């Protein structure tokens, strides 16, 4: 069958003299081309037939007969010699047509390039018959000549010979693998000369040799030599076979518990994506690509494509063709497996609950304010500031409506209203319980007001103390002016005015109640002033301005002074007159500050809704940064006795936190948010403006932009 593949190139060769081969070749060629055609045709037809769903494919009926024909032809060629011999005898009878070639049994190709084909008995050249048949003639002949199939060409003479019936039968017999002679029987019964059965007579009558039954001397000699050698120990008995394997366990000595153990480093193969709807042979219509999508898909880089195939719809599963990308995909999968990152993901099995620090439940941290109890109504504009008397009986609030109101805490009764003629920025009740005095920031002056509430003896003594001031002989130059109130102001309760040059922002008392500090909206070094009430003497503690001062605070016990600028809180030692510490608030703009009654912890509220807790002994950075509020913090406050602190924010809520400071220096403060107190209505985007704790009870007051003060208990 090797020749068949040679067929097509031969077709291109020009017509030449090698007829015999040419014939077979052309035969083969036609057969082959026919096969080819029918094959391709049939495959197409098959497809069509399948599409139509009609009856199954049937192989073209012409194929097998033709093939057998070529087989016949070939076998005919093989039997050429015999035919020629037969022809010799046949042609003996007719002597005129005896054109016997005398070249002998040589390859006839030698004469391929000659016009003759050999020589006859007379030594004359036998010329090749003139063959001018072209393909068409041959085809016509094939079609018309009924004996074409039994016509062969004589290689020696080049003449066409028509095979007789006997010859055809002979060829067919040979092809079937039978003997050529019809009468030859290949299966005649065979006669055995030697049988497998034991007969009574031996095949030979020769007696057995003597040496076959006497022991061999040579062998005896050899055995005795061996015995002697064994006795002498020259021959060792065979060693037992060493069955230790030639291979060994490479990882036998590996520590099975080590993390690097191979079995522990098993990296599972990356998982394949599971097929989706788009890979279905009949996907839902939304998975099919529209024309634009298809165009876009084609224009995309193959690596960028979301899908590496176009979803296609088939009528039925049978209509789905073979998957053309199968090999490609397998290859890519192999690449994936080969190149997958052999990195072990160290997943830590941690319960997320364990990561949350253990905080006590708010229930166990009672008491703290939980509900709104009283609303102090009366102000007509936002209430900016609050302060409470040291006994906890009176509350003072300053508002944008230009009044300061004094309230009875337990009934929300407004006891006094003091019009001050300006926005009240800050109020501070003197923390000394023996002095009844309130400092109020209005415009450019600090008013020292005796509210005449509470113990008569106390506020009488306070008045007496203020009146007992004697001016020093020489006038000292002061940054502010101390003015005694006139009669009308005196009747309202105002006792002294400290007139500054700029608008005031904040006022705060020292714990002893003699000194007070005021903050001016200014960016010079005159921002912070410290006043002494008993001597009516003011001083400016700072030579240089360190930024815009937001608020100031006295340390409750030690001579420290806290100044909060926008980002830092500076701690000054008032006795040594030096900067002790600078705390980084880690926030953009500090709004308020409060100090723990113990004096070692500070909280700072900031406009970027953070609350920073500083432990002064620990670090200059916040110990904790609490972000509970949604909006800017306006005010923070500590409770004097209970471990509570509160923050008020623009979002209208007050958040109360438990802030336990331990006496043990090693134990860090415990901060637990315990309650969100709501109640204030947001007005002008402002919520709670000030918060303050009751000095003795776990109650918190808040003042809001809605003009109310609320008490939560």
């Amino acid at each position, binding site marked *: 069958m090797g020749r068949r593949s040679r067929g097509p190139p031969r077709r291109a060769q020009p017509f030449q003299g090698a007829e015999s081969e040419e014939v077979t070749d052309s035969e083969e060629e036609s057969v082959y081309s026919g096969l080819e055609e029918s094959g391709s045709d049939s495959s197409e037809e098959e497809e069509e037939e399948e599409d139509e769903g009609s009856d199954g494919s049937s192989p073209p009926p012409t194929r097998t007969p033709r093939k057998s024909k070529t087989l016949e032809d070939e076998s005919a060629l093989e039997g050429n010699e015999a035919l020629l011999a037969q022809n010799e005898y046949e042609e003996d009878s007719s002597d005129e047509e005896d054109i016997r070639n005398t070249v002998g049994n040589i390859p006839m190709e030698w004469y391929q390039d000659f016009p003759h084909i050999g020589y006859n008995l007379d030594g004359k050249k036998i010329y090749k018959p003139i063959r001018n048949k072209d393909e068409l003639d041959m085809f016509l002949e094939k079609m018309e000549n009924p004996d074409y199939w039994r016509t062969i060409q004589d290689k020696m003479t080049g003449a066409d010979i028509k095979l007789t019936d006997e010859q055809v039968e002979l060829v067919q017999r040979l092809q079937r693998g039978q003997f050529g002679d019809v009468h030859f029987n290949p299966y005649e019964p065979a006669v055995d000369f030697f049988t497998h059965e034991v007969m009574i007579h031996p095949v030979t009558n020769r007696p057995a040799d003597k040496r076959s039954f006497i022991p061999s001397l040579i062998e005896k000699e050899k055995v005795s030599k061996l015995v002697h050698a064994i006795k002498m120990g020259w021959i060792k008995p065979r060693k037992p076979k060493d069955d230790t394997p030639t291979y060994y366990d490479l990882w036998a000595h590996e520590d099975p518990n080590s993390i690097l153990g191979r079995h522990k480093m098993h990296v599972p193969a990356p998982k394949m994506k599971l097929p989706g709807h788009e890979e279905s042979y009949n996907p839902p219509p939304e998975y099919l690509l529209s024309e634009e999508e298809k165009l876009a898909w084609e224009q995309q880089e193959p690596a960028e494509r979301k899908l590496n195939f176009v979803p296609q719809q088939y009528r039925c599963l049978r209509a789905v063709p073979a998957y053309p990308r199968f090999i490609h995909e397998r290859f890519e999968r192999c690449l994936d497996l080969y190149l997958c990152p052999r990195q072990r993901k160290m997943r830590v099995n941690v319960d997320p609950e364990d990561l949350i620090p253990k905080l006590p439940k708010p229930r166990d941290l009672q008491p703290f304010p939980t509900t709104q109890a009283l609303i102090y109504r009366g102000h007509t504009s936002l209430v900016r500031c609050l302060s409470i008397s040291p006994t906890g*009986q009176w509350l003072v609030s300053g508002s944008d409506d230009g009044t300061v109101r004094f309230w009875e805490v337990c009934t929300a009764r407004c006891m006094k209203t003091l019009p001050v003629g300006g926005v009240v920025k800050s109020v501070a009740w003197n923390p000394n319980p023996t002095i009844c005095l309130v400092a109020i920031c209005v415009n450019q002056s600090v008013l020292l007001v005796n509210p005449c509430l509470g113990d008569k003896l106390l506020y009488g003594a306070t008045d007496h103390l203020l009146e007992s001031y004697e001016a020093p002989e020489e006038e000292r130059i002061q940054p502010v002016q101390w003015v005694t109130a006139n009669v009308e102001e005196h009747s309202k309760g105002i006792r002294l005015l400290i007139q500054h040059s700029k608008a005031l922002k904040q006022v705060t008392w020292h714990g002893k109640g003699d000194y007070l500090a005021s903050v001016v909206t200014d960016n010079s070094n005159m921002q912070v002033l410290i006043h002494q009430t008993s001597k009516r003497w003011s001083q400016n503690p700072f030579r240089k301005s360190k930024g815009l001062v937001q608020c100031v605070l006295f340390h409750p016990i030690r001579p420290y002074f806290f100044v909060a600028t926008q980002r830092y809180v500076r701690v000054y030692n008032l006795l040594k007159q030096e900067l002790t510490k600078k705390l980084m608030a880690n926030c953009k703009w500090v709004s308020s500050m409060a100090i723990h009654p113990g004096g070692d912890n500070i909280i700072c509220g900031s406009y970027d809704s953070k609350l920073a807790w500083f432990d002064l002994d620990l670090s200059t950075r916040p110990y904790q940064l609490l972000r509970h509020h949604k909006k800017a913090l306006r005010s923070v406050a500590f409770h004097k006795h209970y471990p509570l602190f509160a923050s008020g924010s623009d979002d209208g809520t007050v958040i109360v936190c438990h802030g336990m400071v331990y006496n043990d220096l090693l134990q860090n403060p415990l901060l637990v948010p315990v309650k969100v107190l709501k109640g204030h209505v947001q007005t002008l985007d402002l919520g709670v403006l000030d918060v303050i704790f009751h000095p003795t009870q776990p109650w918190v007051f808040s003042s809001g932009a809605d003009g109310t003060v609320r008490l939560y*208990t």
Partner: protein
Amino acid sequence: RFAVQDVPFSVPANAETTDLSHLINKLLAADNADHKYVEFDFLINGQFLRMPLVMHMETENISTEEVVEIEYVEKYMAPQPEECIFHDDWISSVQATEEWILTGCYDHTARIWSLEGKSIMTIAGHTEVVKDVAWMKQDSLSCLLLSASMDQTILLWEWNVEKNKVKALHCCRGHAGSVDSIAVDCTRTKFCSGSWDKMLKIWSAVPTDEEDEMEEAANRPRKKQKTEQLGLTRTPLATLSGHTEAVSSVLWSDAEEICSASWDHTIKLWDAETGDLKSTLTGNKVFNSISYSPLCRRLASGSTDRHIRLWDPRSKDGSLVLLSLTSHTGWVTSVKWSPTHEHQLISGSLDNIVKLWDTRSCKAPLYDLAAHEDKVLCVDWTEAGLLLSGGADNKLYCYRYPATASDVGA
């Protein structure tokens, strides 16, 4: 009156008080032809029935298999509003007798009203808010009364009824803070006062012509003159100190015992004779008001949360709350036991509501008296059948309550 035969009845489990009431009425009507319909309230083991029977029995863990004894009483009728007395300012305190009502007001005065709501007398003399008032002695001709004020004094007044004149007999000075509460003892010769300055002081209430010596600072002649106008200065007989915060309420539980409630979360019992502290009841909230009923010997306290708590002042283990009545939504500012009924008390709260309670029903009050438009600051009730409440809306409301019905068992 309403006795029925003591025969067990089978009652549907989902019966409510109205159904049971109908049942009793039918039984009574069968016995007595001229029976009129009466509404009843029902008690099971001393608890008022306020929900369907089955639910009540579930919550009280009573088996439905047993025979349950249901007591019934005539339903306590709702108090009828009578008068609304207008004041000029907040009413801080009220005390009524059979004939007159005495109120303390935030406009620095105390006022006397008739029961019909007629203003009889306005007593001005204090320089600050009057925080508490009390009747001392009542005669047909003259009455003695007390007013305590934020100006740290208590004034003892004599009111001549016929002439309708009032005279300040004594000015009790000695407190260093607002005097928030006064209480007169049962012999009407002494009274006790509690103040913001954490002290309790016991004073003699007998009017005399002598002035007690007061070591006053010599440098305040002006103040002295002013007080001299208001009667003779009187100094306390005894001072009881022990509270660490303001005293909000005092009372005499009997002739020898003073009971005081304070902002330091305690109720203290004092021996009035010796001035010794007898026992302490500790709560966890600020006490606003206490009341003692000699009928049931219980203390009721109103504090700065929503609950009214009942205490047994004689219990040795101190801080045991017997019962808490919860229905208010704000601070309870004042409580008062009924003078005639051992189970009833009223309470006023910052949530503007006065509630009438029966201790046998601690989840819900008998009646809500929601007339006030602002905080209720004081409540009182008289034996004559009047409920009084005053508040921050400047109004004093009077209610007539029915006389106590007799209990009948079944």
